């Protein structure tokens, strides 16, 4: 195992943790329209992730920083190539992030509505566009010898990428509803379960279509058949576990299932990418991990830093979740800072 490969895996891991955590944030944001019926319920949903969303988003920032610090050529090609998509992701994340704070200062109905809608829109846009980008990127895009990517419109928006975007968004919504079932009490909790009873069958259909398209539109199954098959099955299995939790009213199982499903999507993509970081339509222009990586010296430093800091972060990160285990009741929930 070279250090460069280790960092490729680590970046994949950081992205899967990000999607596991921010996935339910996104889902909760979408639920403000699909589940909540009035402003109090929306606020209760928002408060259920209030203490956590910023920390969750930090995993994305860390994944981006880690990519820059270990595989800068991947960072440079991916981020410059998907310029407009990432710009819109940023707009989504920005509008969503400020909504948490601004909505509590809004005093008119119109103001409250505006920030609840930006919260919803951002929560919907960000996972859709991120999944769209990832599923577009793994199909291979036009690149030059310098590593500059020039994806055309239909390289970005095509059947697989759109299905992937929709499936990822739906899975986030399902995951968010499972989180709500754990953190909220009263009618919202029961409604979330009922909604998931409807959504899971749709999700399974989406996952099957997704798997078929990945089979035909990417080289994952020709290059790495066994592992790709196992991971695809795991995505579905974890979703089944979540569905089982819905049917048997086992909220913990549901939450773990939908979260791991999301993480497995990233694992599938990184497994298929390996040993490349960017796939070009002309295979000669694809970028390999070993060419994208930083010097041995820098990677060693970063490995030491990560080995020391990641466990410490994990400890207080998990501890912060244990502080907020009391279920939120929209009827008692007052506007607070």
């Amino acid at each position, binding site marked *: 195992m070279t250090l460069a490969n280790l960092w490729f895996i680590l970046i994949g891991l950081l992205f899967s943790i990000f999607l596991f955590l921010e996935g339910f944030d996104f889902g909760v944001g979408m639920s403000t329209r699909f589940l909540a019926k009035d402003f109090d319920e929306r606020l209760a949903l928002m408060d259920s992730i209030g203490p956590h969303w910023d920390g969750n988003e930090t995993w994305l920032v860390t994944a981006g920083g880690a990519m820059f610090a270990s595989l*800068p050529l991947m960072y440079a090609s991916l981020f410059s190539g998907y310029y*407009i998509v990432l710009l819109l992701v940023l707009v989504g994340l920005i509008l969503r992030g400020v909504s948490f704070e601004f909505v509590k200062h809004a005093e008119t109905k119109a103001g409250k509505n505006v920030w609840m809608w930006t919260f919803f829109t951002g929560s919907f846009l960000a996972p859709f566009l991120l999944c769209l980008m990832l599923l577009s990127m793994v199909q291979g895009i036009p690149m030059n010898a310098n590593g500059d990517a020039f994806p055309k419109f239909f390289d970005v928006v095509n059947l697989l990428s759109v299905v992937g975007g929709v499936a990822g968004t739906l899975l986030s919504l399902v995951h968010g509803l499972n989180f709500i079932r754990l953190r909220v009490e009263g009618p919202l909790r029961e409604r979330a379960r009922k909604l998931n009873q409807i959504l899971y069958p749709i999700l399974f259909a989406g996952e099957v279509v997704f798997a078929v398209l990945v089979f035909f539109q990417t080289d994952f199954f020709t290059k790495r058949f066994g592992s790709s098959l196992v991971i695809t099955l795991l995505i579905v299995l974890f979703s089944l576990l979540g569905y089982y939790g819905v049917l048997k009213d086992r909220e913990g199982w549901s939450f773990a299932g939908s979260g791991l499903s999301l993480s497995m999507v990233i694992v599938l993509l990184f497994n298929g990418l390996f040993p490349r970081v960017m796939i070009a339509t002309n295979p000669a222009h694809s970028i390999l991990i070993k060419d994208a990586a930083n010097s041995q010296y820098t990677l060693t430093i970063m490995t030491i830093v990560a080995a020391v800091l990641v466990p410490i972060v994990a400890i207080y990160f998990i501890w912060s979740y244990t*502080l907020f285990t009391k279920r939120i009741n929209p009827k008692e929930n007052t506007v607070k800072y």
Partner: protein
Amino acid sequence: MLDIGLSIVSLARFQFAMTTVFHFFFVPFSIGMAVLVAVMETIYAVKKDKVYLDMAKFWGKIFLLSFAVGIVTGIIQEFQFGMNWSEYSRFMGDVFGAPLAIEALLAFFIESVFIGIWMFTWDRFKPGVHAFMIWMTAIGTMLSAIWILAANSFMQHPTGFKINNATGRVQMTDFGAVIGNPQLWRVFPHVILAAILTAGTVIAGMSAWGLMRKKKGENHFFKTSLRFGLWTSLIFAILSAGAGDFQTQQMLKDQPMKFAATEGIYKDTKNPAAWTVVELINSKDKTTSHEVEIPVVLSLLTYHKTTGAVKGMDTINKELHAKYDKQFGKDMDYYVPPKTLFWSFRVMTGIDLLIMLVALFGVIWSRKKKDTIENKKWFMVIVGLTLWVPFIGNSAGWFITEFGRFPWIVYGLFTIADAVSPTSTVGTLLFSNIVYFLLFTLLGGVMIWYSRQTLHHGPYYEMEDSKQNVDPFAKEAFVK
């Protein structure tokens, strides 16, 4: 190169300037507010004086508004290097990525996790424990400043690296030298002290407006806040001036062109050197006119003694040509934009001096037994208006730092023109510039509006419960 209109480079530079300047309105303010709110809450925990709890809660609201805008605009910065400056990212990845990743792991997690806890646990923890959460946030924000400044310092003064002959890219050889960069440890105190100065000035200014309203029951709160803010501004205005001088000594060594430009000197000065207060600069002909000078002061500022000449930009330009022509060719223009630097420096130092004076008189006139400050309405208005100026000063300071490394993106190694993404087009850059501009106008406007509203409500306002159920799709939901 500056005047080529809508070129890709100038659009990308404009975007970098716009996004960083906007981001940096909120960063120093948030860092300073985190520290000051932590101090307030600690005073409450120790002295049990309730006014300090009220202060921590009230100023905490303003802090959170700024913090929210600060974080979300921060994500742009991390993405932007890849999006607009992919050649830079390729060239610098080996050195530049590490501090960014460490910043996320070490600092961002601390600040984001502990701010989440702090916001939602006012009623759960003892004051001391709760204050610990905001102290962690404050420490997180300061750690973050160290790492991002480490990255920037490398761009100003590269250390601990070599150029990899095979790839032509920068390669880190000594991590200790990258974080031990003398530039970093001279700029860091300046930034942190100015951050606390910013927060103190805003607290003093908003308190002045609050005090002027003369609302019942608020006098003690705003008077205490006013004095807290004024003392902070006074102390930290003096300290950040000192830190600025400390940093200038390094600039003289590493980037003499930047220093000469901040003083608007083309020809070498006489010995001892006179300090030009103001002058007109003609950057085309490289001449100056209408100088207002004070003898000897420049020698004092530069060398802390009454003798010593200062090199002008013409001489330094020749030296830089001699040094870099082999690598970069004879056509390079090493003059930095002199007007921007000259005036930025005067704006920054002038603002520091102004805050110092306002704070000094404020502290004197607001002493407990003499209520004279309330009777000097003109002075209260000045204190109130002063709250805006540190933001201008902070931006001016960064203008000096960033314009002063022209024409390089990494000093002496890599030019700005070579750094932009080859994939960028005028169209996409124009689009993203417009999107960011509209977004920032909205965020900045709303943030100021809600801060003003918070001040208007005062510290003892209980927000009415929003228990009326509103159907969001009903017509009345969209009407006031």
